[in-house]
């Protein structure tokens, strides 16, 4: 799937086999993707994975290597264009508000550089402040030092949006504000994206943030895109162990193919036990297999009451962890692998879980509720 159905426009952002090295360090290796106009696209990964370098190449602060591919914005190759010659705006990690200029002068800065008429500047600054829900009467004349983190964030956003950019780059813009406000801003950013139809390229290391806001996510690892897809795709069908681990939580089971059946492949688990997985092409007897199973796809049951059509591995309850919305039961298998099972918390005060430390228990899951991972 590429962008919204029915839209046949040129991609707003296109990265074609882009590489970037700093000395001997490769920051971005042969990355390609296309982002359609109006899309909310996230670059997600741990620090040092290359996501910020990639964003800086879109902005024009870094150039790809000499033979390092092409960056196209609105269909035009921009490799050698300076940042001020690109059709984009950016929100910086620590906002980068100009400390010597008031809020209105900060927001007006880009318009002033474009020689916009004075009256128009006033008008547009006002509406940009209103757009990010900062009352111009209250905030226009404040200095950045007189604002809270969340307010600075909004000013930074207004300063970028006032230019009506086709593309907005956001570099971990919510990293420095507290959780409650962050959740609020996530939804606001998402609705701004839909309302303004601006293409958002959003860099974050926070998987939950990426899942909440994005139309699509490029999960990056070691200078490469490990997986690109919608939030549901990367969460439910993680291709590699890295993606499964980085986005949400996962239990991993390793094994070797024992036999291929009509519908299922039977696998001997390396630590003991056996499980079935859906039939896959190219997996024959003797092949090694690694699967990921999300804690919420697992169930816990008495060892002698496993549903016959499910996979099950027996063990002992190691711990029960209270997480609020869910309960995690940690089950230790005989080979010391600890498996997390997520159960809905139906109220521990009125209907406590029947499991406690030391109980014998089996973790069970439907064979189709697993993700067979690719070798990394």
């Amino acid at each position, binding site marked *: 799937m590429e962008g919204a159905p029915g839209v046949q426009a040129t991609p707003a952002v296109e990265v074609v086999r882009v590489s970037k090295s700093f000395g001997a360090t490769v920051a971005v290796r042969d990355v390609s993707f296309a982002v359609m106009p109006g899309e909310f696209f996230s670059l997600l990964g741990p620090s040092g994975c290359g996501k910020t370098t990639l964003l800086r190449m879109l*902005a024009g602060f870094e150039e790809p290597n000499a033979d390092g591919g092409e960056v196209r914005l609105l269909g035009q190759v921009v490799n050698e264009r300076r940042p001020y010659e690109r059709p984009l705006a950016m929100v910086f990690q620590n906002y980068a508000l*100009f400390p010597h200029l008031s809020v209105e002068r900060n927001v007006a800065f880009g318009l002033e550089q474009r020689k916009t008429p004075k009256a128009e500047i006033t008008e547009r600054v006002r509406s940009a402040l209103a757009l990010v829900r900062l009352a111009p009467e209250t905030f226009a004349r404040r200095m950045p030092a007189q604002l809270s983190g969340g307010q600075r964030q909004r000013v930074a956003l207004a300063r970028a949006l006032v*230019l009506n950019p086709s593309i907005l780059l956001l570099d971990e813009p919510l990293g420095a504000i507290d959780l409650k406000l962050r959740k609020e801003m996530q939804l606001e950013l998402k609705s701004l994206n839909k309302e303004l139809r601006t293409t958002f390229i959003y860099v974050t290391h926070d998987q939950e943030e990426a899942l909440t806001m994005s139309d699509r996510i490029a999960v990056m690892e070691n200078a490469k895109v490990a997986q690109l897809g919608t939030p549901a795709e990367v969460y439910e069908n993680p291709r590699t162990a890295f993606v499964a681990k980085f986005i949400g939580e996962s239990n991993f089971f390793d094994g070797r193919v024992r036999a291929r059946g009509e519908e299922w492949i039977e696998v001997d688990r390396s630590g003991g036990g056996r499980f079935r997985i859906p039939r896959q092409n190219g997996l024959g007897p003797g092949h090694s297999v690694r699967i990921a199973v999300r804690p919420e796809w697992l169930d816990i049951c008495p060892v002698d009451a496993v549903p016959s059509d499910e996979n099950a591995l027996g063990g002992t309850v190691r711990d029960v962890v209270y997480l609020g919305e869910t309960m995690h039961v940690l089950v230790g298998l005989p080979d010391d692998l600890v498996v997390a099972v997520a159960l809905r918390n139906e109220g521990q005060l009125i209907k406590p879980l029947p499991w406690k430390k030391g109980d014998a228990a089996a973790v069970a899951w439907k064979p189709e509720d697993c993700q067979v991972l690719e070798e990394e």
Partner: protein
Amino acid sequence: MSTRRRRLLGWLERHPEAQAWALLGPGTIWMVVSFVIPVLIMCAYSLMPRGTYGGVEVGFTLEAYQRFFNPVYLIILERTFVAALLCTALCVLLGYPVAYVIARSGRWKNVLLFLVVLPFWTSFLVRTFALIFLMRDTGLINSWLLKLGLVREPITMLYTSFAVLTGLVYGFLPFMILPIYASLEKLDPALLEAAEILGAKPAARFRRITLPLSRPGLVAGCLLVFIPALGSFLTSDLLGGAKELLIGNLVQNQFTTARNWPFGSAASTVVMVLVLGAVLIYLRVRDRETVGVI
């Protein structure tokens, strides 16, 4: 002993004003004894009759000031201000780019800063004599120019206002570079990137971001250069000869050879009042500017 010390520290912790006074005290006493009292004595002397063999006699007179406001001395005053202003301007023009480069030179930063302060390892007097050897008619510069055939006769450099200015700039340049460097070093590079992506080309980025944010350093540097340049006498004495007398030389003469302490005090007081006035006006204007932005 240790309990008493602990009790004292505890008491200080509970009394922040006392703590502040304890920290400010020694410095304040030092400044009062070595600066405030001498300045007051100077102001007093400027209003007293001169003693026959130096010093002052008890009494009150405006004679010294009447004498000072006379074209002969006002020319010296004007020359001094022009020299100090030129020196400050040249130090800005030469020093700002240097500070800018040092602030962005990464791992070479410390080496370059070391080079800036290196001249302080030698006495200013010795360095001024070195300038004489460079600039005199038979000095290094002229002998090279003659050897290279660029000039037929040596260029007179020593004992001109050019020599004085060169000496002043040479002596005070580090005091301009260091504070500007300090403020440029603090400048967050992300601000320049933000300005660039908002459409600002290099010149606009400098004018709208770098320059205003380095202004505290620039102001500090200007004060550190302008004020001592006003009072300098060594440079003009050695490099300017008798022709290029500055107010510092005048004051020095009055206290030594001429033995007219009230007149020397009056000249000093006039300069001090002018400088104070200039700084106050500057601060006023600046405050108004800041208010204007908001």
